[in-house]
C-alpha cells in the first residue's frame, strides 16, 4: 500500500503553482508598454547616410539575396558617385547586418524600428527618402559603439519586468 504517498505529487505540484502566485508578472502590455530593445538591435529597416555614401555598392554585393538595389550616375571628377536610387526590399531582407558590417565608409546603419507590417507587398520596399539618416532618427548601435552608448539600456526579463514608456 502506498497510502502515505497518496496525493503527495499533486500537493507538490500545487505548491509550485502557489509560489508563482506571489511572483511578479512577466507579461508586457505591448501596445501601451514597450520593451527597450537591445542597443544592437537589428530592426526591420536600414538607415542610409547620404553624405557619407559614395555609391560603391559594397553593401549590395554583400547582400545574399539582392535585397538592396542601387543605381548611381557617372561622375568623371570627384571620388563619389551620385546615388540616384537606393532601395531595400524588406520582404527579402533577413536583417543579417552584413551590409552594415562591410560598408567601408560607415554610411549604412541598422535601424531600430520593427513595426513595419504592411497590407500590400509593394509597400515593403523602402526608398531612400524613408531610409535617409537624420540626427533625430533612432539608429541602432550594431557595429557602431558610439551610437550604442547613447541608447537606453535593454530591458531584461532577468532584472526588471517592464518600463513605462
Amino acid at each position, binding site marked *: 500500500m502506498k497510502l502515505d504517498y497518496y496525493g503527495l505529487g499533486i500537493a507538490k505540484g500545487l505548491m509550485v503553482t502557489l509560489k508563482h502566485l506571489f511572483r511578479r508578472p512577466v507579461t508586457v502590455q505591448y*501596445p501601451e508598454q514597450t520593451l527597450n530593445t537591445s542597443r544592437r538591435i537589428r530592426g526591420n529597416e536600414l538607415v542610409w547616410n547620404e553624405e557619407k555614401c559614395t555609391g560603391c555598392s559594397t553593401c549590395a554585393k554583400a547582400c545574399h539575396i539582392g535585397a538592396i538595389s542601387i543605381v548611381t550616375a557617372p561622375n568623371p571628377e570627384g571620388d563619389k558617385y551620385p546615388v540616384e536610387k537606393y532601395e531595400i526590399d524588406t*520582404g*527579402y531582407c533577413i*536583417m543579417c547586418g552584413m551590409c552594415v558590417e562591410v560598408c567601408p565608409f560607415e554610411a549604412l546603419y541598422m535601424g531600430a524600428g520593427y513595426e513595419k*507590417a504592411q497590407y*500590400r*507587398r509593394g509597400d515593403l520596399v523602402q526608398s531612400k527618402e524613408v531610409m535617409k539618416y537624420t540626427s533625430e532618427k533612432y539608429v541602432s548601435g550594431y557595429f557602431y559603439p558610439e551610437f550604442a552608448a547613447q541608447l537606453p539600456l535593454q530591458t531584461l526579463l532577468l532584472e526588471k519586468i517592464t518600463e513605462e514608456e
Partner: protein
Amino acid sequence: MDLVPTRRFVYSDADLDQHEGEVIEALKARSQQPIPDQDQWLSEKAPEAGILLTSVDKVIDWARSNALWSVVCFPACCAFEFISTAASRFDISRFGMEIIRASPRQADLMITAGTLTWKMAPNVRRIYDQMAEPKYVIAMGACGISGGIFQSSYGVVPGYSRIVPVDVYVPGCPPRPEALLYGIRMLQDKISKAKVFRK
C-alpha cells in the same frame, strides 16, 4: 464463408508517393504567379449604407476582430517567435486569440510561420481551404513574404502569396514578437473596417 478482403482502398506506399508527387507538380504549375492582394477596398471611400446596416456591421466586425483563432501552420523558424508571442511574456491572449487550434475548421487566422516548400504547399492549401469563412492570413517573416534567403532554392515556394491570399505582411527574419503583435493589430484594424453587407 470466407471473407476475402478486396483491398480496393488499400494503396501501396509507392502509389501514395506517386500521387503526392502528381499533386505537388499540379499545384506548382498552377501557382506560378502570386495571388494579388485583395485589399483595394481599404483605400476606397466607404459606400453609403443605412444606419441599421452600419451598426450591424460594427458589431460583427468587433466580434470578428477580437476573437481571431489561429490555426497550427508552423513549418519553420518563425514558429519559435510565435511560441514566444503566445507564451507568458508577450501573451497573445490579451488580444482574444490564446487558443491555437489544431483543427482548421475552428480557426479563422493562419499565421504562416516559416518557409514553405513545394512539398508542403498542397497541405497548406488544404488547411486554408478547410478553414471557415471569413479567414485571414498573416505572412510572417521574410520566407512567408517572398521566400527570403531561400527564394532561389529549388524546393521553396517564393512566398505564401503563391498559394493563399495574404492580408498582412510582417517583415523580419523572424519578426520580433512585438512586430507580430503589431501585424495582428493591423489585421484587426482591417477587419473592423470591412463591410459585411456590401452591394
